[in-house]
């Protein structure tokens, strides 16, 4: 069922998500260019070439994402088993972006097991872009995030994923600002019934909320529902 309020919320969310995916698609093109330049056999250094454009992107005005980069399929690089090139702007957006360094030692208590993460597994399996969250990015950025990823494919070969992080709080600010005053409260939930966004303190972001009979509108993408409460 569709209502003007739900349609408005869906449109705003759709445009924010689309903006982020446009940036992610640029990252993917940089990776593919590096792959072609390396003649299809990438090594560690070929990936470093995406670094400067990543930093420039994170520093530009109106960039929604605070983290961006590429996560390489295990075993793709000739000289390193696991590799990510991920850069982060600080939350205030004042200092220069810094590289995210994670623990890639499987025996460590702090191991960042990216090959098992939903934002890696799903685009790899489906070949399509994907939105994950809200979730705690434990052992990674330590932030509460939405992560948007798309697969990097060269002639059908999966090279890894390009992606962007949007803190849940930042997403909320952007969407609420665009929404302005609404005639009713809206709650956005993901496929796991987790609240992504809410205009009412009755439903808190991160909690589970199951709505049986309330009017709701499914978004085309991501796979979320807008509930008018």
């Amino acid at each position, binding site marked *: 069922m569709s209502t003007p309020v739900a349609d408005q919320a869906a449109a705003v969310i759709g445009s924010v998500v689309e903006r982020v995916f446009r940036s992610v698609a640029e990252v993917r093109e940089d990776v593919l260019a590096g792959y072609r330049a390396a003649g299809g056999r990438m090594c560690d250094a070929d990936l470093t070439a995406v670094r400067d454009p990543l930093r420039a992107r994170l520093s530009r005005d109106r960039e929604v994402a605070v983290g961006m980069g590429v996560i390489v399929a295990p075993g793709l690089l000739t000289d390193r088993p696991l590799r990510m090139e991920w850069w982060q702007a600080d939350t205030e957006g004042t200092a220069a972006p810094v590289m995210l360094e994670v623990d890639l030692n499987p*025996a460590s208590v702090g191991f960042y097991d990216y090959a098992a993460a939903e934002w890696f597994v799903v685009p790899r399996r489906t070949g399509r872009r994907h939105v994950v969250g809200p979730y705690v990015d434990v052992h990674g950025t330590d932030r509460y995030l939405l992560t948007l990823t798309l697969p990097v494919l060269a002639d059908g070969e999966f090279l890894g994923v390009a992606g962007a992080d949007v803190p849940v709080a930042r997403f909320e600010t952007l969407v609420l600002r665009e929404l302005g005053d609404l005639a009713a409260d809206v709650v956005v939930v993901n496929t796991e019934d*987790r609240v992504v966004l809410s205009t009412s303190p009755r439903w808190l972001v991160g909690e589970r909320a199951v709505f049986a009979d309330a009017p709701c509108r499914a978004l085309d993408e991501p796979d979320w529902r807008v509930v008018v409460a």
Partner: protein
Amino acid sequence: MRIPAGDARRAVFAPLDDGAMRSEAVVRRLGSAIALGIIVDGEQLPAELQLAASLNVSTVTLRDALSDLRARGLVATRRGRGGGSFVVASQEALTELSRGRLRELGSTDLRELGDVRAAVSGAAARLAAERASDSEVERLRETLARLAAAEDGTEQRRIEGRWFIDVAAAAQSVRLTREEIELQFELGQLLWGTERTPAELAAAVAAHERVVAAIAAREADEARARTEEQIAAVTARLIGVHVRLTRQGHRRADHAGSYPEAAGS
């Protein structure tokens, strides 16, 4: 070497609080990190100046700590080109380090640690029961399956540490997750050095399974109660070992047996 690779590594090399016994604090911090696999056997430590600055201690304090670690057999120093301080992940040395810590702490310190663990992990379990997604519950179950199958005590403790951290992440709380990482880090320096018997491990896994079953069933109070119960049992065992070690203090040098009471986390 670049230091800040991952949240756990950042915690290892974060500045130490002001206080007494600072070279001992450096030794414990690095010992914990070795025990938890955050810094690995053969890894070169940062240069002294850099390490001292990162930990916020003087180079004199750092050198004291490194010479203590060397004497314990947890660090080896090589001179000349390509030289420096290298980590030696010696199980015996880690065992001795954790027993020393259990001896010097008071039972009230151990009770306080248990109190904070109950507050943090208990709240995390309660919130996870309310908020965890089905896929997060599934991941917790997978972690427990890996724990049950783990071959040795070192691997078991690391997986168990990850389990507690994952519960906090499933609670959708960045701050509880950070607190849990800190607590597992502190616990790492106490729990080392005792292999669990298969029966003890099975009991610990069963206790975690009761928690995950309560989380899956969305029984928040039950998840919290089972977590607190489990932590209280570990705290009691640690205090038992502490009392025993303290009473045996005068003949500790010739007492190299194991203390299975310190088995659970």
